[in-house]
């Protein structure tokens, strides 16, 4: 054994003497690649986490489904009266809106804690940080799948039959999943560093819920309300909601959603690459 330092490997695994940006991006992609290859770990951990949370209750995660189901049922009847709308079109609209917002809004809020709740593991074992993010995305979809039962019941009750447009739900959900991952890449490290971010995000998500057509529909807006198009959530809501109602979102909604995803993806990747090495110190 020597202490000589003359020996250097050009294929150094972690520190490549190139520009910091390139080096950071490379580390990020290696991290994500390794995280993806450990899919059995995050799938297992995600299931466990959900199961653990509800281990002593009879209904398990279906408690959430039940509470959302009751909410959709009562609000559906109430608002159909207030807005003077046909319940058979309003209630399915509201149900799908709530289920999708449960996924989107819920994911944004909880993406803030993706690293801070894993602080102990991050400091104790060597795992790609993407494992925690992928586990997080996976858990959002487990909860979503439980809530999806409401849609099935509503679809049966109101005779919504899936058609060719319903297939568009698959790419739409995929886009949402990507954005949830980007959220975790951006808000996870940020909230680990600044502990008041989750509170700020929590309020913003609540506001977003009310300004996005979930309780009300875009069709009820006066013609001059162009600002609706400025709300990114509106476009995402349209592309995930319309296929489930057997309708189709506009090209505009799709193009804007894809563009947002692309821009957000670049920002999130750059940001995550920038602070990936610091996360272990921040949590």
């Amino acid at each position: 054994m020597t202490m000589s330092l003359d020996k250097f490997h050009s294929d150094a695994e972690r520190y490549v003497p190139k520009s910091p940006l390139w080096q950071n991006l490379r580390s990020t992609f290696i991290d994500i690649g390794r995280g993806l290859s450990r899919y059995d770990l995050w799938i297992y951990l995600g299931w466990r986490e959900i199961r653990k949370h509800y281990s002593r209750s009879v209904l398990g995660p279906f408690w959430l489904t039940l509470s959302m189901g009751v909410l959709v049922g009562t609000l559906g009847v109430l608002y159909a009266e207030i807005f003077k709308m046909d319940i058979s079109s309003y209630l399915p609209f509201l149900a799908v809106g709530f289920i999708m917002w449960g996924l989107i809004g819920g994911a944004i809020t909880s993406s803030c804690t993706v690293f801070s709740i894993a602080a102990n593991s991050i400091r104790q074992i060597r795992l790609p940080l993407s494992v925690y993010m992928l586990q997080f995305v996976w858990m959002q979809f487990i909860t979503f799948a439980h809530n999806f039962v409401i849609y099935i019941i509503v679809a049966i009750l109101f005779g919504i039959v899936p058609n060719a447009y319903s297939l568009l739900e698959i790419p739409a959900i995929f886009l949402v999943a990507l954005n949830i991952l980007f959220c975790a890449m951006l808000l996870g490290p940020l909230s680990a560093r600044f502990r008041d971010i989750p509170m700020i995000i929590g309020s913003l998500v609540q506001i977003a819920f009310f300004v996005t057509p979930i309780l009300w529909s875009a069709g009820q807006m006066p013609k001059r309300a162009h600002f609706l198009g400025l709300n990114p959530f509106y476009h995402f809501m349209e592309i995930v909601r319309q296929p489930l109602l057997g309708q189709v979102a506009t090209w505009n909604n799709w193009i804007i959603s894809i563009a947002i995803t692309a821009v957000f993806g670049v920002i999130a990747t750059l940001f995550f690459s920038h602070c990936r090495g610091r996360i272990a110190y921040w949590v």
Partner: protein
Amino acid sequence: MAEILVESVTVDIPIFDASSRSLKNNVLAAATGGQIRPRQGTGKISVRAVDNFSLHLEHGSRLGLVGHNGAGKSTILRVLAGIYEPTFGRVHVEGEVAAIFDIGFGMDPEATGWENIILRGMLLGYSRREIEAKLDEIGALTGLGEFLDMPLRTYSSGMATRLAFAVSTSITPEILLIDEGIGAGDAAFLAQARERMQTFVGEAGLLVIASHSNALLKRWCETGLWMEHGQIRMFGEIEEVIEAYQENAEAGAPAAA
């Protein structure tokens, strides 16, 4: 071939207080040009845990780290494990790394012994299939018998350690990093586990262990590294390093900073 190369590594660990954790305060501090800052230099406090540290370990090395609490032993192990990225300097680690920093980590008190074996095994790097194939072997190794069907919270602490130990030592990494815990743990159990540990340690291509148990270090390591204030105070034959370290400790005179 396992290899560790550390070149002039410095690690600064930031210390955050409630104020520097707050975005609002940081934004305000920036916006007011620092004039109405509640305190001077908020958020800029950090501890230099490892200072200009260089090391080259080749396949077959068995290194024992000694030093006072806070000398930087755990931090350098975390750097080697890839958990902490150094503030300055370079680290090159070749070979599959397993780090055992907390023997009880990743155990779920509500889950049964079997589930905990799977959980901890997967956290240590096994795939689901691999750990399930090894389940019986590890189960037998724990010697816990039917207790494995019971939740972990019903175990005595000795039994829990036994379980954690059996899983942790079932891996065969090229590079093994161990921090404390084991040496400080249950002495009687350690005597029992010695044989198992010997093979475990023997199978690793490269071992770095930090411990306050000099006897343990002498048994497992050839080389010693004495750390002080994040720097290398002494590097050499394990016996010599421990002797010098002990003399220093007995003299009760911590070396001048």
